[in-house]
């Protein structure tokens, strides 16, 4: 067996084991931990949407909160108007994709630092508009999602199955020819352009897919908490997605989930006594990551394991 396919098999086995063990975790956890784990999966899905845009297509966007908030509100109105959950989720995904197309079409017109700025200002604008239109969003006070009572474990498996589905779909996309073009654009946009690819089109497509995923994360978060408010549009959600992805490892499917889990864990360990230093810690962590480990935890693990298997291969040969 060649080294490449062996490593591939190893990765497949490791992912299956990780996914399965998360699936059986609720059997051993208390109610509070199950709720936390549910949230981690939602945050992981949300960060994954950013990862598709940044880690795979190379666009540092601070705009994911627009889709998160929009998804949460579309789901809320879907439930209020009694469309049922499945149809509401379809509407959320379509709405997120449509919004992604529009925002992407505006944002890809500018490059570099200006791109970052345009997405940030877009996020701020959406938040201000949501605050200003209380009749629609309920402003700061928000809206209640009219839900029937569900068990915590039932909700966990809903989110878990859903996270698995989004993870697999994203995996399929990044391994497809389209995903290959995304990564080529990240590596060298001009070369992709010269090879005849309509790079702006692919970048907008990346935004649309990322928008749909982020909207779904927002919708499910609203569905889980039973409450949405204008603050769902706050750009700090975008920033969270950035931090989780960079910590976990950008350009990988597992990275965003690992990052979200690690930081949620750290926040819970710090608890209320030390909770106030959490942002300071995250900030310093980000600086350290940028300087020392730009490919995050998953990238680091990958490097360690490949060094290990290379050594073994060398010994055998």
């Amino acid at each position: 067996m060649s080294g490449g396919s062996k490593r591939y098999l190893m990765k497949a086995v490791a992912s299956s084991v990780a996914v399965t063990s998360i699936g059986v975790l609720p059997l051993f956890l208390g109610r509070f931990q199950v709720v936390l784990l549910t949230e981690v999966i939602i945050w992981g899905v949300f960060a994954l949407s950013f990862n598709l845009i940044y880690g795979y297509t190379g666009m540092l966007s601070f705009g994911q909160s627009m889709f998160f908030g929009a998804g949460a509100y579309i789901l809320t109105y879907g439930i209020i108007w009694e469309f049922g959950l499945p149809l509401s989720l379809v509407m959320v995904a379509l709405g997120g994709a449509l919004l992604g197309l529009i925002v992407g079409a505006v944002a890809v017109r500018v490059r570099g630092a200006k791109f970052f700025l345009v997405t940030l200002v877009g996020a701020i604008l959406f938040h201000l508009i949501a605050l200003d239109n209380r009749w629609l969003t309920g402003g700061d006070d928000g809206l209640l999602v009219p839900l029937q009572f569900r068990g915590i474990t039932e909700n966990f498996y809903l989110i878990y199955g859903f996270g698995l589905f989004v993870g697999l779909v994203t995996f399929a996309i990044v391994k497809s020819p389209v995903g290959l073009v995304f990564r080529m654009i990240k590596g060298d946009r001009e070369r992709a352009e010269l090879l005849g690819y309509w790079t702006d089109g692919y970048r907008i497509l990346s935004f649309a897919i990322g928008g749909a995923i982020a909207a779904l994360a927002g919708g499910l978060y609203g569905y889980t908490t039973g409450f949405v408010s204008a603050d769902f549009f706050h750009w700090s959600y975008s920033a969270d997605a950035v931090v989780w992805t960079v910590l976990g490892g950008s350009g990988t499917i597992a990275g965003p989930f690992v990052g979200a889990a690690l930081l949620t864990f750290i926040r819970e360990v710090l608890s209320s006594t030390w909770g106030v230093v959490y942002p300071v810690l995250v900030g310093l962590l980000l600086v350290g990551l940028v300087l020392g480990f730009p490919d995050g935890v998953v990238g680091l693990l990958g490097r360690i394991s490949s060094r290990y298997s290379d050594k073994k291969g060398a010994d055998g040969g």
Partner: protein
Amino acid sequence: MELVSQILFGLLNGVTWGILLALISSGLNVIFGLLGIVNVAHGSFYMVGAYLAWLITTQLGSFWLALFLAPLIVGMLGILAEFILKPVEQNHTLSVLGTFGVTLALQGSALTIWGGAPKRLSAPVGWKFSLFGTGYSYYRIIAAAISLITLICLWFLLERTDVGLKFRAVQEDPELSVAAGIRVPLVYSLGFGLGAALAGLSGALVAPTVSITPEMGLRIFAIVFLIVIAGGLGRIWNAVLFAIVFSVVRGLLTTFFNPTAALIATFVLVLVFLLLRKNLPTSRG
């Protein structure tokens, strides 16, 4: 008559606030416009400047001393931040992430030390003059005047001295600058420090007119970044003009709409302007 006086009031407020906004932007203009480093932490330097002004005034009793010390301390903070992030400062993406980390750390520190409740600083110059039936604080005029003088000094430094020449040389061609005997890393350190000091000064100047909170830096950052880019990178007077236009438009819109709607409309106008004016001069990369 009522409307006319409201509009005049909006104009005056727009111009004084606009000049202050121009001073904040000028710091980012040095760091981002001249040196090409994307500095997301600029708003946090401004926030730290405001807190320092409050701290020094309440502890040592002199606002004018604070106005002198705050830029000095924030400038050194800037030099430290630039020193730490030196390896990634030429990479736009990594420097956005790195300086965003600095932002979180500074904002979190302010929250830890001083808490989230807003701090207030009374104006060092108490007098007001009556204007269209309302009192207008002299301090705002003085703050605008100090800003304007600082901007003129900055313009002189950058356009009429060797220091400014070196800044532009480094931006044009770092390798050739090394060959010409310019100590490039030193120029970056000092430039970043200067930019941060300007943010610290503007934070201190603004402190008596606003409520000081840990989030104030992030609130202003997007506006400042927009002004620097829309005005044209490295062009100080363009940015000044743009800052004044921005805040006058916002001030006038506030007379007719609620403040949030006015801010939304101003942001949309700037964004449209930015997207339509495609061939803006950009920095390297």
